[in-house]
């Protein structure tokens, strides 16, 4: 009994120490910490690792310029391992344990949704660099990727006008981005007078690798005597087998063009693009863009990665813009305190890589040009259309019944992410 008693005591002590061991030692820092929250392992590593490297490069560049507010920047890299709960956990860790001034990260919508409450609870700053479905605006998140109106709708317009497309296949991976985008496009197309029998919607699971009959269906759908195009919101991994099947079944861009929103230079790097020449993608940046800033960026990137074949892509530019906006806002505010930065960053405008300026809007989305490019044999895109001006990211789509009345404006006094212009109240469409 006594023995048991002792071991109990021992265990108790052990437990205490364990608990104490967790307690993070709070220490003053002479550097500004920047969190990088991108998956380095698991299914999303394929896309996100690159963004981690970009951030490291940007921070290195900034430090060469003397850092921010006279302090050096210190990157804090963690690996959420493509595991969504882990994203939230790591976000919390970055904000509470490492006390980072801002976090650059996330790729998938689910990862963003997972960390969102954490950033709002702990009042952190997240810069999200990937095109997404919209329908969200948070005080603590800055969306530097494209909203649907900065990518999908212009692309559809291009096909309808320049290619005279009358029949549409909306093919996507079965998750929220394609679902929402397709909903928006469906409404938009119908508003343009496209009949519903001329729209075919198809969803496939993640990492779908056997595209034989879907591609065949597309062919079939395309043989109704009207010009047909495929609008692809197929997610990263599944694209390679999809395009390989397209190429093999001989669907040429001249016959049935495919316009993709998630296929960039990185994805093409894994495919033999000869059979795909002419298929399209809509982005806000292409590596092939011929500007001084871009050339410089590409050079830095290739020297940083010690690989002169390394490509650049749209989300990388988004991080480039987002990071510079943050730096500018911090310097404007003279502090990294989140509230100050949130106030100062709205209206900040920095050069993008496509020869213009992008500005942070009150809805925490940014202005971007929309480019349509055609795939070339060398795996690059040839810009075939560019919007004359900049397009403002529209967080609440006008083509979804429940969100068309909503707007977001994070400036005082409104400071609301879902203000309803109809009811004049903050907080959704009410009832």
């Amino acid at each position, binding site marked *: 009994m006594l023995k048991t008693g002792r071991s109990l005591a021992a265990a108790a002590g052990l437990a205490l120490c364990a608990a104490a061991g967790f307690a993070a030692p709070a220490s003053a820092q002479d550097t500004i910490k920047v969190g990088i929250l991108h998956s*380095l*392992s*698991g*299914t999303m*590593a*394929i*896309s996100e*690792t*690159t963004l981690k490297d970009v951030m490291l490069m940007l921070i290195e560049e900034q430090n060469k310029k003397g850092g921010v507010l006279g302090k050096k920047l210190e990157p804090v890299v963690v690996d959420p391992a493509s595991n969504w709960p882990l994203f939230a956990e790591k976000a919390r860790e970055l904000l509470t344990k490492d006390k980072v001034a801002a976090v650059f990260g996330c790729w998938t919508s689910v990862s963003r949704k997972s960390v969102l409450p954490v950033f709002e609870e702990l009042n952190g700053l997240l810069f999200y660099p990937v095109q997404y479905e919209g329908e969200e605006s948070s005080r603590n998140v800055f969306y530097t990727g494209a909203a649907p109106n900065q990518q999908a709708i212009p692309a559809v317009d291009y096909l309808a006008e*320049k*290619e005279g497309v009358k029949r549409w296949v909306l093919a996507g991976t*079965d998750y929220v981005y394609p679902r929402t985008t397709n909903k928006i496009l469906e409404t938009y197309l119908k508003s343009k007078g496209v009949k519903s029998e001329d729209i075919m919607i198809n*969803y*496939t*699971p993640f*990492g*779908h*690798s*056997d595209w*034989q*009959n*879907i591609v*065949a269906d597309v*062919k*079939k759908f*395309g*043989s*109704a*005597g*009207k010009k047909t195009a495929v609008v692809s919101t197929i997610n990263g*991994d599944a694209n*390679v*087998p999809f395009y*390989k*099947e397209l*190429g*093999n*079944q*001989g669907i040429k*861009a*001249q*016959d049935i*063009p495919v316009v993709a929103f998630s296929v960039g230079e*990185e*994805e093409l*790097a*894994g*495919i*033999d693009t000869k*059979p795909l020449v*002419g298929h*399209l993608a809509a982005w806000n940046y292409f590596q092939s863009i011929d500007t001084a800033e871009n050339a410089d960026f590409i050079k830095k990137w290739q020297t940083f990665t010690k690989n002169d074949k390394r490509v650049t892509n749209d989300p990388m530019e988004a991080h480039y813009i987002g990071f510079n906006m943050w730096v500018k806002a911090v310097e404007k505010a003279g502090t990294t305190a989140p509230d100050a930065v949130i106030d100062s960053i709205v209206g900040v405008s920095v050069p993008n890589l496509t020869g213009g300026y992008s500005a942070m809007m009150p809805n925490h989305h940014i202005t971007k040009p929309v480019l349509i490019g*055609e795939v070339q044999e060398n795996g690059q895109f*040839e810009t*075939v259309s560019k919007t004359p001006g900049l397009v403002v990211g529209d967080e609440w789509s006008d083509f979804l019944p429940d969100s068309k009345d909503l707007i977001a404006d994070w400036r005082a006094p409104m400071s609301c992410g879902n203000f309803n212009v109809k009811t004049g109240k903050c907080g959704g469409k009410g009832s």
Partner: protein
Amino acid sequence: MHRVLSWLLAALIAVATPAFAADLDPLVRALGTGTYADTEKALAKLAETGDTAAVPVIEALQTGDLHVRKADGAVVVARKAGNGVALTDPLTGAALGEADRSAVEKIKINNSLRRSISAALGALTLMSPNPQTRRQAADAVFKSRDVNALEALDTALAKETDEGVRRAMFQARAAVVLNSSAPDADKIAAVETLKARGDRDALALLNAAANSGGAEVKAVAERAIASVEQRLALWGAAQNLWYGLSLGSVLLLAAIGLAVTFGVMGVINMAHGEMVMIGAYATFLVQEVFRTFAPGLFDLSILVALPVAFLASGAVGVAIERSVIRWLYGRPLETLLATWGLSLALQQAVRSIFGPTNREVGAPSWMSGAFELGGLTITYGRLWIVVFAFLVFAALLVALRKTAFGLNIRAVTQNRSMASAMGIRTARVDALTFGLGSGIAGLAGVALSQIDNVSPNLGQGYIIDSFMVVVFGGVGNLWGTLVGALALGSVNKFLEPYAGAVLGKILVLIFIILFIQRRPRGLFALKGRAVEA
């Protein structure tokens, strides 16, 4: 006789070329000015001349070699030479010396331009001496349905002797007629021609005709559509069967290595997927070598990759067996844990070496593209994978049944102690068997690299399916694996059209669960006392 004539004609044109060149020049020059639309207009004009001298110009435009010399705005063909470009005149082909790359600007083309280009080339090359080219020309016209090409078609048809080309031209003509304002009688004839052709492209045209055209044409067209669609529906079933077969063969390839390591040796090899992945990366490396040293022989790269992949994966397999698995025989579960750990490490290793992004594995010419078999579209890539899968299966079967090594394997797996008592070096046999299984997985990797991502996650996509196949077929029975793979493949493909891809897969899984209830030891189970022992 006709042939001779056409040859003469061709020769004549060839000789005549320079004479026309002069008046073509401004048209060619116009290609280089303004937007895509302007280029397209210029191209149209160029095509209308019907002058074959324009062909090389248009071809240059198609291949993206046509440039504008910034200095004087002249349109030239610029091909890479050294670190500059060599300029030639698009019409005469006369050399215009070298220039810096920045001195010329490429004339960009987009999809609609590409369409007009192939249309123009079609119209212009109908008279080409080479039947192959004439055939392509006819098909191009068939696609473009360019009314202006009608004349050229008729002249060409009058001269055409080659039956195949003739048919192609007739169909092209029919397509054009339907697109034109020709009298209904001609259109009805055209409809019949297309009905005879009876494929998807024909269907597209017929549909268009049914939507436009007079009442009579409409009626005929609709009847034609009905018959064509019926025909295609029949072929559709066959097509589905083919899809099932090809998916099945992919599953077979993925699973067959596992049938050895897991089925025969009883090692729950969670790293099997990574063996496949290694095979795929081996393919990538081999192709890199070919790209750098022998681009000409690229078509052979896959063949070279096969043994390389087999050895690479096999070697890794042997290493794993010697270092880890050997300690775990008779503890299948522990093998599950250890190999799971290994698969994590292998993935990360590949990620650190090759980077996390996809690597490009190209398809050799003999594996790309597709051919029509009646109403079936069969892609060469898939076809070869099916063939390859069965070859591998047969080879393995022979290896296990007929060779001394196979005998040893079976001896060891059936009664280890007895085998060693009979002087079989069990340790060596174990290592080689595991190596064999892994090597086969490597071969699968070569095939899969043709249809899927070559990324560190490649294996993960197949590991579960592989286990399903092996267990469904009955552990330890190769035939079971074969039947299992093909069965699951075709079931999946038959469900997909009705249930959709996701639901289809779910149903297949449920089917497996229920099936195992009926036959707790898989399709080809051992019966009798041996089971309980």
